[in-house]
């Protein structure tokens, strides 16, 4: 299976058939037992910021506010502070969490956490966004 740039692919299957595992292989968290996983023709060696993942259980950092969770990626990649701030504000308003920008994850509902998890990956300029049941609890 190959995915072209700009393509949107949905994986559908019974539970336990390996949808999440396939995503985890592409993200670089797991090694394929058979076959190869390539990105732009290069084998995937491990997790990297060009492949962002939205986890089913969010995987937010509980000690960081919404704002800092979204800024975690750009900060880790050494972007200048001003650029990080602008990016964070842009994505907070994109997912409509302005009122909760300084809340901690435990103060958010499931749907709000999911929006943070999505914003965090989008803010990191990932080339491919892997989402594991990303809209399961989405409440717009």
């Amino acid at each position, binding site marked *: 299976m190959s995915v072209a740039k700009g393509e949107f692919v949905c994986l559908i299957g019974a539970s336990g058939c390996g949808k999440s595992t396939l995503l985890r292989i592409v*993200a*670089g*968290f797991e090694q394929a037992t058979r076959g190869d996983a390539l990105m732009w023709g290069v084998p995937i060696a*491990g*997790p*990297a*910021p060009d*492949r*962002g*993942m939205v*986890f089913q*259980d969010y*995987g*937010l*950092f*509980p*000690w*960081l*506010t919404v704002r800092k969770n979204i800024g*975690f*990626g750009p900060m*880790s*990649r050494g972007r200048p502070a001003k650029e990080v701030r602008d990016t964070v504000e842009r994505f907070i308003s994109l997912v409509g969490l302005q009122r909760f920008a300084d809340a*901690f*994850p*435990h103060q958010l509902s499931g749907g709000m956490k999911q929006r943070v998890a999505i914003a*965090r*990956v989008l803010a*990191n300029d990932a080339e491919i966004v892997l989402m594991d049941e990303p809209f399961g609890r989405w409440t717009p």
Partner: protein
Amino acid sequence: MRSVDPRLFEAASMLGCQGTAQFYRVVLPASLPAIFTGLRLGLGFAWVVIVVGEMTGVQTGLGAIIMEARQLSRTEIVISGMIVIGIAGFISDRLVVLLGQWLLRWSPSHV
């Protein structure tokens, strides 16, 4: 380090935080609750040890004063020494708790 949710390591590495940066930005904050619990237990134990030490070996300090007063039958000094130790222990414990509450305000089990 082993008690940290592996999901958080995955999240950090897919966001571009790898190697030693992961220690400061993931392991350290995630271990803070355990560090503070240990700090508080250790502080209580430290108070006991220092007073007992002063009562037996060391010639100075509150414990030594209490022992000296005991030998001179100065009960009021013994009792005030006990009260001072109690207050000092209580205040130092409160300080650790307050600092912990502020640093751990993100943790639902600490507010």
